[in-house]
């Protein structure tokens, strides 16, 4: 599989094992530049593990992942972030006891150059860099609808704002590709709608490519241009939202778990007995 210019991320036969468990099995995935794509699948399907492979938190046992044609498998998370992939977490992981602005400034880390001596002696360049960084974070906060809350401790923000701050923090590193792990988890319908609008704006106004994991079908179907379905670590389907909705394998993967025993009895070996 070769990288074409229209794909920003290409994963090729990525496999990640934990002991005997194969969490991600031979997954091929292409993410179109400036697209919004989703990965869906039942709980434990390996979606987050796949994210962790992309960001370098895990190193896959086999397969390779390329960002803009450059091999990134095996790189550490900070290197991958510097190359332009940023992420948010399923359960919000802000720096809770740092202020909102500080969270953003940490996110900007890859773009700040001043080192130990700059920090101690505060030369002109360091000061200018700091001032520019603060300016930039305030701008970013306004963009995310968090203006005026910069000096609050992150943990004191309301839930929805914490989600937005996490996205803002990951944007601060100016990523080419943004991985969102269940960005609407725990949100009410109106917050969910806001988040969907926000995600579109990120792509349209900032030109960030977005790959998201999501459980709310309304979000997935409403926002994605392409959907990949994982089950038991393997890719079982890929396509446009309409295609996925009609795909029998996908329906089975979901309903086979969630519904009554009757269906379980009929389902084939790939279904989970629980």
């Amino acid at each position, binding site marked *: 599989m070769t990288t074409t210019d229209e794909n920003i991320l290409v994963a090729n036969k990525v496999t990640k094992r934990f002991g005997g468990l194969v969490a991600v099995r031979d997954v091929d995935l292409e993410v179109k530049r400036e697209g919004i794509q989703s990965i869906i699948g039942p709980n434990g399907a390996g979606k987050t593990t796949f994210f962790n492979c992309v*960001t370098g*938190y895990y190193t896959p046992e086999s397969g390779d992942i390329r960002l803009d044609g450059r091999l990134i498998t095996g790189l*550490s*998370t*900070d290197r991958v*972030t*510097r190359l332009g992939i*940023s*992420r948010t*977490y399923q359960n919000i*992981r802000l*720096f*809770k*006891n*740092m202020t909102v602005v*500080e969270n953003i*400034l*940490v*996110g900007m*880390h*890859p773009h*700040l150059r*001043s*080192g*130990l001596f*700059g*920090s*101690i*002696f*505060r030369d002109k360049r*360091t000061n200018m860099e*700091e001032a520019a960084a603060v300016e930039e974070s305030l701008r970013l906060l306004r963009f995310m609808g968090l203006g005026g809350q910069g000096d609050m*401790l992150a943990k004191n923000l309301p839930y929805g704002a914490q989600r937005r701050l996490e996205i803002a*923090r*990951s944007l601060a*590193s100016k990523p080419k590709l943004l991985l969102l792990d269940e960005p609407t988890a725990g949100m009410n319908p109106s917050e969910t709608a806001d988040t969907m609008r926000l995600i579109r704006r990120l792509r349209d106004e900032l030109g960030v490519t977005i790959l998201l994991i999501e459980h709310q079908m309304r979000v997935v179907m409403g926002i994605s241009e392409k959907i990949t379905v994982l089950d038991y670590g393997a890719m079982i389907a890929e396509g446009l939202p309409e295609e996925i909705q009609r795909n029998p394998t996908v329906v089975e993967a979901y309903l086979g778990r969630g519904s009554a025993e009757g269906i379980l009895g009929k389902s084939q070996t790939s279904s989970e007995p629980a």
Partner: protein
Amino acid sequence: MKNLTSQTWKQVINLSLLGGLITVLIALIGMVEAFAPRFIISGLISMGQVFLLLPIFIFCFLNLRKIGTARKLEQFMVGAVTGLIGGAVVLFVLVVGQLVNLRSVFINASPVLYQIITFKVPFPTGYIVPLAVFLLIGLIATGIYILPTRWRSAVIQSLGVVLLLGLMRDLLVAVITRWGPLTVLLKWMFAFSGMSLIGAIVVFIVMVGLAYWRSTRPIAQKKTTFTRRDKIIRYSGLGAIALMILLLPQILGIFFSEVLDTVGIYILMGLGLNIVVGFAGLLDLGYVAFYAIGAYVMGVLTSTGLGFFHLTFWEALPFALIGSVLAGVILGLPVLKVRGDYLAIVTLGFGEIVRILALSDWLRPWLGGTQGIQSIAQPKIGPITLDNQADLYYLILAGILIAYFIATRLKDSHLGRSWMALREDEDVAQAMGINTMSTKLMAFATGAFFSGLAGAIFAAKLTSAYPHSFNFLVSINVLSLIIIGGMGSIPGVLVGSLVMVGVPELLREFAEFRLLAYGAVLVAMMLIRPEGILPEARRRLELHEEEPIEELAENDTAQAEVGD
């Protein structure tokens, strides 16, 4: 107002029993007897008696706080019950002590102790004495507790000051006698042991007045705009403090200078460890290693006794610093992946390795083994050799200023933020593009730098270095002073050092009970004020978010009480 329920009384009784048990414990471990000859107020109240009575006093307060608002009569009842129960526990031990010889187990359960407890009243009347005395204490405590908040804190602070003055009488008199005219002026204050009664009363009244006056002043410090006058006051205040710090050794004399030097060396180490533990959240229990390395490098390079090199202090200093920083990096490299508790264990091991190497036969030709290194060079500035406590004070002060400057700058910088992020969530910090390796190494190296500096100065101060100066307890002391001062807070390091190093140095006679007091202070701090004495603003928010509300409520009740 509600009546106290039987449930509340149960709690009161339990706490009082605990208070009584603590009193007995303090008596039986010998603190009461050991400090009986030491008067706080000459001929009236001894330190031993303070130790005997203080727990019940405190537990009275705890009980009264527990029951919350209640009628005055009920409050006095609680106070009386607390005192009586405490007294009863002590009485019980007294009776048992008369019947059985407790000394086979409790060495300190001597007739002298019983005499102190009964205030020298012979038996059997003596049996009633503890009950009566503790009852009295309970009532006095209640009396102080029910004062309006301002008066209450004024009285308690003043009692504290009197206690402190009485305790430090010898030191203070030594200082005062250096200043001729003052001696006459202050002679009435102190007796042969402790304070004179008149002195104590005058100091108490003056202090109450001062404390009350201070508390009634409107809170003006929180202004955001400063007039020119404010600025002048501020700067002249700062100037006065700076001048004071500069003149301290001249004012206080040799003994205090020695104490200040020790405190200063701990401040230097504290500032360094604060970066590692407070900023970056890397629990380092082997911090003494860098201190030792700084000292030993200084020793090896300058000691005329060993005779390998004959560098001067200033020539050797860079090597000592580089040596410590390198050691910081060397320790840092293998432990980069180790987190939390495991890191603590690994660093602990590292600290011990360094000490044992210094002690070893293998390195004896170089490091002197148990004998250590002698005749280490003293620092010279021009023709002056910094060889006495007062001169060294300035050297240490200069070191602290540099360290303080660096620490403050780093804290509020790009790097400081990275450390903070690392402390909060290492995985996420790395996912934000922070190179955890170099960031951690930077923390270890900076910390080691300050510690190495402290070690080098320490070696030059003693002109010798022995392995036993670098044992595990040094690391623990530095860590405790950071925790007591306030984790991550730079001014907290100063306060922590004064409290955890300075005070024990001044109260040498407590040496026997030093570790006990240490432990008690640590436990109490963690329970009452886990964020430390001078916490970083951020930490205070973390741990005491509801504080302002509580304070308001307290003021309200205080006013309500005044209204009664």
